[in-house]
C-alpha cells in the first residue's frame, strides 16, 4: 500500500509534464485533409478538384533508391496507368525540402509521368498526412475517407519475382472498385525517410 501511494505521488508529479504525444498524420478512416499544391508546371491542384473520385497519393523523392527502383521497374507507372484508365486519380507529392518545381519537372520528364507531380517543399501536406517514407501511399475513397495507408507492396528490397509480390495498393483499389471494404487497409511503409525541411 505504501509503495502504491509512493508511486501515485510520483505519477502526479510527472503527470504535469507528461501527456502522450499524439501521433501526427492521418489514420485509416479519417477524412483526408484538403490541400492545394502547385504541380511541376506551376498549376494549382487541389484535392477538392477530385470530389467523388478515388485518389491515390504517392509520396516520392527521385533521389531515393526505393523510388528509383519502382520507376526503373516501371511498376509505379504501370500501376498508375492501369487504374487511371478506370477513373482513379493519381497524385505524386514530393515533400523533399530541396526539390523545387524544376526538379519535379525534370523527374516527371525522365520517368514519363503523365499525372501531376506536386511540389511540397515546406512539407506541410506531408506532415498533415504523416508521410514518413518514400514511397508512402495513401488511398482516398469517393467519400473523401482515407481507406489505405502504408507501403506499395511487400517487397522492400525488390528481391521477389514480380508475380510473387503482394501489391497492397492494387489490392486496395480493387476492393474499393468492387464496393468492398479494404481487406488490408494499413501496412508499415518502407523506404527512405521523407527529407522534410527543418
Amino acid at each position, binding site marked *: 500500500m505504501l509503495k502504491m501511494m509512493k*508511486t501515485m505521488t*510520483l*505519477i502526479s*508529479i*510527472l503527470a504535469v*509534464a*507528461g*501527456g*502522450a*504525444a*499524439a*501521433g*501526427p498524420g492521418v*489514420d*485509416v478512416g479519417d477524412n483526408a485533409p484538403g490541400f492545394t499544391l502547385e504541380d511541376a508546371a506551376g498549376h494549382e491542384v487541389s484535392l477538392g478538384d477530385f470530389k467523388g473520385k478515388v485518389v491515390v497519393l504517392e509520396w516520392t523523392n527521385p*533521389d*531515393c*533508391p*526505393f523510388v528509383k527502383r519502382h520507376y526503373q521497374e516501371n511498376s509505379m507507372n504501370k500501376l498508375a496507368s492501369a487504374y487511371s484508365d478506370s477513373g482513379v486519380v493519381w497524385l505524386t507529392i514530393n515533400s523533399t525540402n530541396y526539390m523545387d518545381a524544376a526538379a519535379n519537372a525534370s523527374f516527371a520528364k525522365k520517368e514519363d509521368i503523365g499525372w501531376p507531380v506536386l511540389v511540397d517543399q515546406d*512539407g506541410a501536406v506531408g*506532415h498533415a498526412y504523416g508521410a*514518413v*517514407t518514400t514511397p508512402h501511399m495513401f488511398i482516398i475513397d469517393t467519400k473523401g475517407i482515407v481507406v489505405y495507408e*502504408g507501403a506499395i507492396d511487400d517487397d*522492400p*528490397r525488390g528481391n521477389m519475382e514480380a508475380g510473387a509480390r503482394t501489391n497492397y495498393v492494387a489490392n486496395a483499389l480493387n476492393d474499393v472498385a468492387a464496393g468492398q471494404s479494404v*481487406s*488490408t*487497409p*494499413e*501496412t*508499415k*511503409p*518502407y*523506404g*527512405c*525517410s*521523407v*527529407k*522534410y*525541411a*527543418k
Partner: protein
Amino acid sequence: MTEFRYFKWLGGALAIVLATAAAAEESLVHARLVADTDKLRAGGTFHLGVLLEPEPGWHVYWRNPGEAGLATEIAYELAEGLEVGEVRWPVPISFVQSDGIDGFGYEDPVVLAAEVIASDSVPSSAPVTVTASWLACKDVCILGSATLEATLPLKGTELAASNVALEAWSEALPIALEPGVLDLSITGGPVLSEGAVDMVAWLNWKAAPGSVEFFPDPGPGLKIEGVRVQNRGLLTRIDFKIARLKNSSDPSTMLRSLIVIEDERGKRSAWVTHIELD
C-alpha cells in the same frame, strides 16, 4: 548489470586485419565475415556473423528501423552439419532521420551474429556463406549488400580479429531485465484491434540511472508513435502511442523493447523488457 562498450575502437585496426576475409568492395558499408571457432567440434557451438563498418556519417538500421528506413538482414548458407540460430542485435543508437522521423541503427562498426551448433556429423572444415543486406543513409539512402564466403574454421589473423569482434558483440548485446534493477509498471491499454492507445511505462529505478533511452521493437502488426522519455531522479516516465495495424493478423500480445541507460562516462547498459498489451 552488464556493461558494454561500443565498437569505436574496433575501427581501423580490425578492418585492416580482416581485409583478406572478403573481397574488398567500394561501398558505404564495409562487410567482413566473422566466426570465432578454431575447430569444428561435434556438438560444439560458435558464433558466425558479419562485421559492418559504415563510412563516417552513414548509418545502417536495427531490427526495428524506426519510422522509416529498412532493417538490416543477415542470411546464412551453411554446410550440412551446421545449424544457425537467431541473429542477435547489439543495442542501437537513435537518430533523427528527418524532421519528426526517428530512426534506430548503428553508425559505428557493429557485428550482427548468431550462434551456430555443429552436429555429430560436422566435417573438420566447412564452407559457409553469409549475406548481409542493408540500407545505408546519410543525407540520402543507398541499398547495399555483401555475400561473404569462407571455409571454417578461420585461421591466423582472421580468427584473431573475429574473436575480438565477437567478444565486443557479446558485450554489446542487451540482456533480460534482472530483478533489482528497476520496477516496471504500465498504465494505459489494452491495445485492442481498433484505435491507438496511450500507454505509459513507469520505471522505478533502484539506483539513479543517468540518461534513459527506450527502443520499442514492435511486431509486424504493431505501430508505435510519439515516444517521449522523461527522467526525475529514480523515476522514468515513458509515454508512447501504440496501435495495431488494421486487419493485421499479427497476434502479438507483448511489446518487446529495450531500456538503455548511459552513465556520465558514456557507458551504456541495456535490458530487454516485454510489455503486456492485453
